[in-house]
């Protein structure tokens, strides 16, 4: 049986090799390996994020078959998908849940890379493209959230774009650009739809391709703990077939989890958005924006002589920027030294996000 398999594989590969000379690729694939140590578990999260992105693309394309992106039809079309289309409920709930899980996976992946210092030279660009991918993922989430045109989404978008408007200088024009006008209207919906299904996927694919190519070219990052081991003790897992099978196992479980979530925790639709009604009490954004939202709520109206929101936007902007350019200010680890500051900053950021997210949920 196994010989039959390898024979078949061999036939396919030689067919391709005759035409595209892929012997180099095959050699590369055979040699590709992943460090095997205590922290290997973190190495799966990038793949999970990739899987969830693929799930999003497929389920998103399926939703496109029935979704209508105008003010008077958006809500009705999502209702139609959820109730009248065969398995529409499944596709829709999977899409919504997978979006959330993807952002979570990307965050975990980012933090694991941070603490394992995978951003060091020569991998700075991989970090930057990765950060770009995080930003686009959250933008995906923000734009997609509006598409069902329900009450919650409408007001979340209103509040979210209001905060964008607080950015000094470019805030106002940026707000108009996002909203397609001064208020959140059907024009906003059209824009967000365009962003969500065309612009963001395009940028994402480019960044992702770069991100993955760079990893293949440079090999997987090895943290110092592992790198400094004597070669005899450096255990590895060959990528094909071992690590790939492990990933497959995890991916199967993740997909099944999505199905379970879709059946037992179906995504709600709520009521149709009405621009003239007042915002419902306790309006808040999705969890991955919640910590920012909560911080803004705590800011006083005025700090020194500046409006509170402006200070908030500036502080956040600076914080995010510093985080993004960590390869620049972290010189110590590039040289193989420990950087306590880096670790403390990382721990602080995680705790900060967790605390404010929890506060965002329990406070009203």
């Amino acid at each position, binding site marked *: 049986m196994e010989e039959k398999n390898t024979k078949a594989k061999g036939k396919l590969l030689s067919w391709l090799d005759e035409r595209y000379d892929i012997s180099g690729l095959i050699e590369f694939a055979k040699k590709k390996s992943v460090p095997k140590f205590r922290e290997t578990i973190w190495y799966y999260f990038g793949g999970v994020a990739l899987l969830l992105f693929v799930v999003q693309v497929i389920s998103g394309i399926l939703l496109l078959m029935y979704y209508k992106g105008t003010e008077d039809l958006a809500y009705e079309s999502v*209702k139609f998908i*959820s*109730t009248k289309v065969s398995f529409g*409920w*499944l596709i829709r709930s999977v899409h919504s849940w997978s979006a959330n899980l993807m952002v979570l996976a990307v965050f975990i992946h980012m933090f694991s890379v941070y603490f394992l210092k995978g951003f060091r030279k020569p991998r700075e660009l991989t970090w930057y493209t990765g950060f770009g991918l995080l930003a686009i993922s959250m933008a995906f989430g923000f734009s997609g959230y509006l598409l069902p045109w329900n009450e919650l989404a409408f007001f979340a978008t209103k509040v979210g774009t209001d905060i964008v408007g607080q950015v000094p200088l470019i805030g106002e024009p940026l707000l108009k650009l996002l909203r397609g006008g001064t208020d959140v209207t059907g024009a906003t919906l059209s824009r967000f739809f365009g962003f969500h299904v065309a612009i963001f996927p395009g940028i994402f694919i480019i960044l992702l391709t770069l991100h993955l190519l760079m990893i293949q070219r440079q090999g997987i990052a090895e943290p110092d703990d592992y790198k400094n081991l004597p070669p005899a003790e450096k255990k590895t897992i*060959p990528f094909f*077939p*071992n690590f790939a*099978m*492990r990933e*497959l*196992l995890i991916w*199967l*479980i993740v*997909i*099944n989890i999505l*199905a*379970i979530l879709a*059946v037992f925790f*179906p995504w709600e639709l709520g009521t149709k958005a009405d621009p003239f009604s007042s915002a419902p009490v306790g309006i808040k954004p999705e969890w991955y924006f919640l910590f920012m939202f909560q911080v803004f709520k705590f800011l006083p109206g005025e700090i020194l002589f500046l409006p509170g929101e402006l200070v908030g936007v500036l502080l956040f902007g600076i914080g995010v920027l510093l985080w993004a350019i960590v390869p620049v200010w972290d010189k110590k680890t590039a040289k193989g030294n420990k950087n306590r500051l880096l670790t403390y900053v990382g721990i602080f950021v995680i705790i900060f996000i967790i605390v404010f997210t929890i506060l965002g949920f329990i406070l009203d």
Partner: protein
Amino acid sequence: MKIKLINISVSALLVILLSFSLTKAQAADQCIKCHLDLDDNHAKLFKTDVHFSKGISCAGCHGGDATSDDMDIAMSKEKGFIGVPSRVNRYEVCVNCHVDENKMKRYGSNIPTDQYENLKISIHFQPTFNNEGPIADCVTCHSVHDIKDVKDPASKVYPTKIVELCGSCHSSAEFMKQYNPGLPIDQVSKYRTSVHGHLNSKGDPNAAECASCHGSHEIFAVKDSRSLVYATNIPSVCSKCHSDAKLMAKYKIPTNQYANYVKSVHGVALLEKGDLSSPSCNDCHGNHGAVPPGVESISKVCGTCHVLNMELFEESPHKKAFDEHNYPECESCHGNHLVEPATDAMVGTQKPAVCVNCHSNEKNTKGFIVAGKMKTLIDSLKTEDSETKSILNEASQKGMDVSDATFSLKDVRQVLIQSRTTIHAFDLDKFKAQIDDGFNIVSKAKLSGEEAIDDYYYRRIGLGFSTVIVTLLVIGLYFKLRKLEKKS
């Protein structure tokens, strides 16, 4: 002798005083003295006028100086003489005094002073077609120079005379077509056929006549909501007399109609809900030709609105049966003034069903069976409907969408309403055909609901199935991996 002398002197004194006062009076109204001498008809008439008896002279209306016997002074403009007031504004003469309470009191009268206020906004006060003042002013109805107190049988507006008065315009096609060619002109002739009209002809001033219902000064078009005979005002207008026990005792008419009517479906609809299509007294009894509908014609009267019920009834076996027994058709089951909302309890084989009044297991058995079957069908549709509603509710509680099926159930209400009308054919087959529609709708909705609930479980079963496959795969992969790693 002495007494006789006193008598004579007292009488003489009286005569002197009387003639003195007469002269005084005559001295007060030189106008009439002169005009009587001239054999003026108006002056002759005026002597019968109520104003004359109150001591008002010709100058009271025409102006001028009544104390002077010199025509030039008496009838001078300086003294306020206005001659014969023109048709256009002659009413102003009456208004001069009759809106003033003090003036009324001065002449010992306590008649109301709102006539002009009311007349001004009434339909009669619109200008004539050739702009010669209001269509009807004070003079038109009360006449002039021979005006009597309205309680005086000689008054033109006394109940026994007012009908002719109103009719003088309102029964004239020539006259009415100048204003409203569509307005009927048969009111008087219809009225004369009515009970009110008969009594009125016989001289009964208590029977309703034109002003009793339409008002006197404040008359509006019937469609005008301010009119006393506007649909919503009619019941209370009729009840003004017809709920008065003392008044009605003479005619031996009961006085509970209004009290019953306001509690009835029709009364509540008209008076509380403002539904103008609901009948008030005149819709069943007629207005001018008001007469209770006769026994045989009741279904026709009810049938003017309840057409379907009437048609079905008249084709039904009940029509002949009721007529033979002199039963008052619709009224037998539904009442006349106190028509209560018809409920499903009215059909069936047990009280309070009205069927049992004539039908039982021993007598008129066929009808008894039919009534029972109809009741069963209605009840079972209602039961099916509520069962289906609870299934749909269960489905929606489970998070499944059943809005279409829920919506379709609204038609069941329609079917029930139509079936209740079809009852009046008293024909089981017709009834079954009608109500079967409802059963169809309900069974379809029930199916939808059950399918939705099934789908709920189907999802969970599908998930379980997929999870089993995934679990098997995961286990298989795990073992395969273990093998692989063992090898290396």
